[in-house]
C-alpha cells in the first residue's frame, strides 16, 4: 500500500536522499524526512499540481527523551483535491533548530509558537517566535519528558499575608 501511495512515489523520485523512512499503521502513511529538507519537501507537497496539500491540519512536537534524536516535529497535511491525509515527520536533536513552514501555511505560525513554547524547539525564519500559552519569562518547557507533572508547589495553595 505504501509503495502505491502517490505522494510517497513522487517524493521518492524528487527527493531520493532525504526520505528516511516510510511506514504505515492503521492505514495512515508516515514519511520521515531529513530535518534540513523539511521546507523543500513541504513546499513540493503544497504546490505540486497532482498533490496540492493545501491544508495543514496540525503541526506538533514530540519528545522521545532519553532516546536520541530527542525531538520530532510532526506535520499532518490534508489535500482537498485528493481527500487524503499525509503525515510528515522530521527528527532533531535538542540543540538543533528546524526550518519554519510559516511562509507556506500561515496556520503554522501559532502551531510553531506552541511547539517552541512547550518543547523549546526553535524554528528558523519564523517571523514572531515568542511563547504562546505561557508567559515571557516562564522557566522550562512543560511538555518535555524531563519536566515534572507536579512541581514543588503542587497542592500548596498560595496565601498572601494580610
Amino acid at each position, binding site marked *: 500500500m505504501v509503495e502505491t501511495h502517490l505522494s510517497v512515489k513522487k517524493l521518492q523520485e524528487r527527493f531520493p536522499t532525504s526520505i528516511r523512512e516510510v511506514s504505515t499503521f492503521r492505514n495512515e502513511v508516515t514519511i520521515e524526512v531529513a530535518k534540513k529538507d523539511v521546507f523543500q519537501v513541504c513546499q513540493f507537497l503544497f504546490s505540486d499540481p497532482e498533490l496540492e496539500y*493545501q*491544508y495543514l*491540519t496540525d503541526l506538533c512536537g514530540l519528545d522521545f527523551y532519553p532516546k536520541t534524536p530527542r525531538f520530532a516535529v*510532526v506535520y499532518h497535511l490534508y489535500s482537498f483535491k485528493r*481527500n487524503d491525509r499525509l503525515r510528515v515527520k522530521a527528527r532533531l536533536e535538542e540543540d538543533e533548530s528546524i526550518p519554519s513552514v510559516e511562509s507556506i501555511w*500561515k*496556520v503554522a505560525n501559532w502551531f510553531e509558537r506552541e511547539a517552541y513554547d512547550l518543547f523549546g524547539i526553535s524554528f528558523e525564519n519564523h517571523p514572531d517566535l515568542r511563547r504562546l500559552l505561557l508567559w515571557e519569562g516562564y522557566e522550562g518547557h512543560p511538555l518535555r519528558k524531563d519536566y515534572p507533572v507536579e512541581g514543588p508547589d503542587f497542592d500548596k495553595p498560595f496565601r498572601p499575608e494580610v
Partner: protein
Amino acid sequence: MAETRFMTINMGPQHPATHGVLRVVLELDGEVIVKAVPHIGHLHRGIEKLAESKTYHQVIPLTDRMDYTNAMGNNLGYVLAVEKLLGIEVPKRAQYIRVMMAELQRIAAHLIWLGTHALDIGAMTMLLYNFREREEVLRIFEEVAGGRLTPTYFRIGGLSKDLPNGIETKIKAFIDNFPSRIKEYETLLTKNVIWLKRTKEVGIISKEDAINWGVSGPTLRGSGVKYDVRKNFPYSSYEDFDFDIPVGTIGDVYDRYIVRLREMEWSTAIVRQVLERLPKGPIISDNPWVALPPKEMVLQDIASLIRHFKIVAEGFRPPVGEVFSSVEASKGELAFYIVSDGSNRPLRLRIRTPSFCNLNALPKMIEGGLIADVIAVIGSIDIVLGEIDR
C-alpha cells in the same frame, strides 16, 4: 500637518464579549484597526501534559473540559482515536447513539453561540430563547449520562450505559418542536435590518485565505469550502445518514450565521434518522481487555470484578504506533494525535482544536475593519478559550 499617531487599546482578558479570557491588543487609526494581536493562555491547564500521566480511560473526563459547550463531541473524538489505535470495532447501537448525542450537543453548542453572538451585537431576546431550548437538550443529557455540562458518557469501545427507558419520546418531542423554533429565531434576525448592517460584509475571509490559515468548521464553510469531516472521513456510521453540508458564499459574519442555522436543521434531521433506525444490541465492545464489564456483572461475578479492577487500575496496553483521528466538532475539525509506546499511558496526546486555528486567523479578518466589528467577528468564529488554551 500633525503626524499620524496610532492608539493602542487592550481588549480583554475580562471583556464580556470575548467569550472567555481572550486578550486582543488593537492598534487603531481612528476607528480603523491597523493591527490586532491576540494573546492567549490565560486558561492553560496543561491537558496534554496531564494526559501523559493518565491511563487511556482517565483521559476521557479531561476532554469534556476543553470545549465545554461541546463535551459529547470531544469525548467522541478522543474515544474514536483510541479505538483506532487499538483497532477495535464498536457495536452499531453504540455508534448510532454516539451520533445522536454528538448532534444534540452540536445543536446545544450552536444555541449558545447564537445567543451570545446576538447578545454581543445587541439582540438580547435571542439569548433567552436559545437557552430555553438548550435547557431541553441538557435535560436529555442529564437523564442519559447523569451530567449536563460534562457528561463523560462515552467509553473506549462503546458507551457507559444504555439509553434510559422513555428517553426516545423526549428526544422525539424535542426534535419535532425544534424546527419551528429555528424559524422563530430567523424571524428575529435573518431579515432584521440592524442585524444585516452589523453582519453583512463584515470580517470577510476569502476561500484561499481560510484554507491557508487553517480555519475549519462553519467558519471555513462560510467561505464556501465544502469540507466537513463527517462527509470527507465518515466516522461512527455517519455514512448511514442523509444530510447536506451548508456552505456560504463570501465568508462574512452573515454567511457563518446562515451556515450554523442550516447546520442545526441538518443535525435535527440526523437525530430523527437515528431514532427511526436505532438498532437493538450491545452498547459496548466485547473485547475483555478494553471494555469495562457491565455494573451488574461486577456485583455478582468475581471474574468480572477482577476484570473491572484490572482495567480501572492498570488500563490496557495498545500496540506501539501512532494514530491521527479527527471529528467534526461544533467549532470545526477536532483532531487527536496519539503516540503509543506500548505502555498503558499515551507517550503523547496531541489535541488539535478548531478554535485555536480559527482564532489565529482573527487578525486576518478584522485588520482594516472598524473596532465595533471586532465583537461581531469574534462572536461569529465561535471560539471557546477552554479548547484554545487546553
